[in-house]
């Protein structure tokens, strides 16, 4: 027996008193260093032992070490599980992060672009101000044709127009590619001399064009149906109705089943206010007219194609139920912030 045993007892006492005073994590960390650290009491105690020592003494010190570890660990658990956060209020408002908004039209364009890109279409941008050739003459609309004097087109001079459709991109694309195949989606601004609930002088269109050997009407149906289901929902259906455009032959009007009346044309026994007998007009489409293929520098005997040109705002209004196109162009931050 000697000083070592006394020392062990002293350490035990000191620890008991230290533990009483330490109620924080930092305090426990300090005690850990004080007793168990490199220069801690236990290590010092070991260092003071003579080389030949009673193994029992060594065991006693090791027991002390275990005791200290257990006590510290108990105290730590007590501190960590103690209910000292009684006043925590989960309902406190978070600190706001600045958040902006992506415009509805950008969101729609991105969505449309992604659908067509997933089908292997290439995104294009072609002139929004163009010459008469690309806008009309080359699209099989000769001078003096009623489609010319429809009063809807803005002119810069006799030869230069603000395009009222994105179909000028058809000729530009053929010139760019020089030979089939073509599979492109041209999205851009278009202009018409109209303003009311469904028209603004400037709006956006997306124009698809596919030209290759043996492209046929079933392909137009395939792409149309794919787009309609992807954009509007899997439960929607499309139909083609005969129509007339100068730059396609045959031409179609594409309809999609109305989302409000689910295509029935009736809402609670009264005719649906949104659609015509269950159908909404999506836009025009058709097989590219052989004259247009020729004007683009391709041989209509060797290839065929289809094209469509639909309104971005139109599909957006059909999808969101926004009743007035002018609302889409509102610059009210309180409106923009909703999206």
């Amino acid at each position: 027996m000697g000083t070592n045993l006394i020392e062990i007892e002293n350490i035990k006492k000191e620890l008991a008193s230290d533990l009483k005073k330490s109620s924080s994590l930092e305090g426990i960390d300090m005690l850990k260093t004080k007793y168990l650290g490199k220069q801690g009491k236990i290590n010092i105690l070991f260092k003071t032992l003579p080389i030949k020592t009673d193994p029992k003494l060594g065991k006693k010190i090791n027991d002390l070490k275990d005791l200290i570890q257990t006590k510290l660990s108990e105290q730590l658990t007590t501190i960590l599980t103690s209910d000292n956060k009684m006043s925590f209020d989960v309902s406190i408002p978070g600190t706001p992060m600045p958040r902006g908004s992506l415009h509805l039209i950008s969101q729609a364009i991105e969505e449309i672009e992604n659908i067509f890109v997933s089908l292997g279409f290439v995104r294009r941008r072609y002139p929004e101000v163009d010459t008469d050739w690309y806008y009309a003459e080359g699209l099989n609309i000769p001078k003096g044709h009623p489609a010319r004097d429809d009063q809807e087109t803005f002119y810069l001079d006799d030869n230069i127009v603000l395009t009222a459709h994105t179909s000028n991109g058809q000729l530009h694309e053929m010139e760019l590619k020089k030979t089939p195949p073509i599979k492109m989606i041209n999205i851009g601004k278009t202009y018409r001399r109209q303003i009311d609930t469904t028209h603004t002088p400037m709006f956006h269109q997306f124009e698809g064009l596919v030209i290759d050997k043996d492209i046929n009407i079933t392909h137009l149906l395939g792409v149309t149906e794919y787009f309609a289901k992807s954009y509007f929902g899997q439960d929607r259906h499309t139909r083609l109705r005969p129509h007339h455009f100068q730059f396609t032959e045959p031409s179609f009007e594409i309809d999609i089943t109305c989302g409000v009346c689910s295509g029935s044309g009736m809402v609670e026994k009264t005719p649906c206010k949104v659609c015509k007998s269950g159908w909404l007009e999506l836009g025009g489409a058709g097989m590219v007219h052989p004259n247009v293929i020729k004007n683009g520098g391709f041989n209509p005997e060797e290839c065929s194609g289809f094209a469509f040109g639909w309104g971005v705002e139109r599909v957006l209004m059909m999808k969101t139920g926004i009743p007035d196109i002018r609302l889409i162009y509102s610059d009210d931050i309180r409106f923009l912030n909703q999206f």
Partner: protein
Amino acid sequence: MDIIITDSALRKFLDTTADAEVISKHVSLCGPTFDRIKKVPNDYIFEIEAITNRVDTACSLGVARETAAILTQFNLPAKLINDPYKDVPKFPDGFPIKFHFSIEENLVVRFVAISMENINVKPSPKDTQTLLEHTGQRSLNNCIDVTNEITLFYGLPCHVFDLDKLAAQKLIIRESNKGETITTLDEEKNKLPGGDIVIEDGSGRLVDLCGIMGGQVAEIDDHTKNILLIVPIYDPQKIRKTSLSLQKRTVAAQLYEKQPDPELCLPVISKAVQLLKERADGDISSDIYDYYPNQRAPKLISLDFNWLNRFVGIDIDKNNAITSLASLGFGGTIEKDHLICSVPSWRYHDINIKEDIAEEVARIYGYFRLPSILPCVNLPSESTNLLLSTENKIKNYLSAVGFHETYNSSLISLDMIEKNDLNPDTHLKLKNALSRDFEYLRSSLVPSGLENLKHNIGRTSDKFLTFEISNVYRRVSGQTLPSEISNLAIISTEDYRNTKGRLESLFEHLHLVDTAFLPGKNSPAFYDEKCTAEIHSQNTLVGHVGYIKPTVLRKYGFQPTLTVIELDLPKLTTKILPQSTFTPISEYPLVIEDLTINSKKLIGDIIEKIKNTTTLIKDVEYLNSYGTKHTFKVSFGSFEKNLEQNEVNNLKEIIQKQFTV
């Protein structure tokens, strides 16, 4: 062109057991669209959209022909009846009255006329009155009603004059002179633009604004006894021009501008005469007059059945194709794999090429019966369009860090241009603007952005941060078309330093390299030049950032400060690193020290100079300034070793020395 007909009017030409609902549903899929169908006592009213190039379907007869062809495909029994093309009408001759009209060249395709006597003007029978009422017209008297009913049935307008009110029996059909006037049946006095087709009665009076509306002078009244009945077809473009310029979009005008079939003139006048005999007790009192200078040869088009199948995408039975075409009035003979189609007279204008014939076969077969197939196109791969992808990247970034995206019209007003001190002469101006608000193509996005801010004053207490990406349009000398340049504009009520910081973060996000902000020279006119920087990347000017000048702010009533950025995206895009490259990270810690420099140089230049001192300087961050004393936080580091304090101190001294005068 939207037309209204009734179920009973349709059944004058159609024999079928199918009811109105069935007809409307099936025909809409393959032919003219039945937009709406409304039940009325003993009848249905159909609102039908007749396609522009199908004037033949803008009447009961035409819809009946389509319906008969279409229902047959659905295995529903249906037949066209009372086809006016079937029997050749006969007119008695040898009357004392033989008309000889004077008709100027190129105004008339065909002109058929006949007179009747002993007319007894009275109300129409109840059936006719109901029909007209259902189709949105007003019943006037038996004579006028006959003409309206005929138009509804056959799609060809006709007109009656009180023969006794015409000065002479020799009518002159000519172009109007500018400023001539005619009072039409709607009691409007029209001053003619000139070049309009008119009928003069030989006394200098105009009695008909041809193809649009009759003149009041020869109007039918209760005392009318003798009438002149005409069934003309006019030059479509002249009718359209007059109709548009006088804003008289009558049914007749809309039909004439779409070129109705001249072969229908005789059958139609014959039907009209028959009805006037029955309802107004009239008798023919003249020989038939028929002016038809250019009879058309029948049109033949060859259709290859193999091509047809490739074009439609499925194999269509030959006989089915021939039956469909026959039911629409096409004739044809088969030569091997070809069908030589003869086009019916009422389809003379809309059927021109084999694709037109394919349309007829495919639509009657039913587009809805075709499968939906995604085309497999072997498109060669293309590199990404950097401009488009950068635009998307910018939009997504800015909208996520607090900016609101706006879309504004490319068309702006003169006022907006002038308020921003821009020059209207450099802007492209519309020749036929809709209003003064939309008159010029914008050459900068900033004026629209300032309008956005103006509209939002008082709407939000927050700072105003918006952006727009859109094309601007600029005239290029020696070039036909203006250039369309994609621009980015940012409008910010934050100060220069904050806004510039946000822009620099955007540049880092885009991997735009080697950027510099230099004092602005020749900045756009709305900028306060001394508070504006040119933005350069790799020595190319890509845009400006700066304050709006006080005179412009004052015009809008804005408070200072307003920071505006406008960037040329095609230029900027070319400076973006296509791929981000990997830079190794040093294993040794940085030593970060504050450093104060006393210098009259621009802060940007000081930073550049510090950075360029040695490669051991990894970063220089600006903290603040006091007079000419600027404090920076400088990070020192090495790839080879831990830097010792004395080495860092040495470097700091070297830096300081560069700024001692």
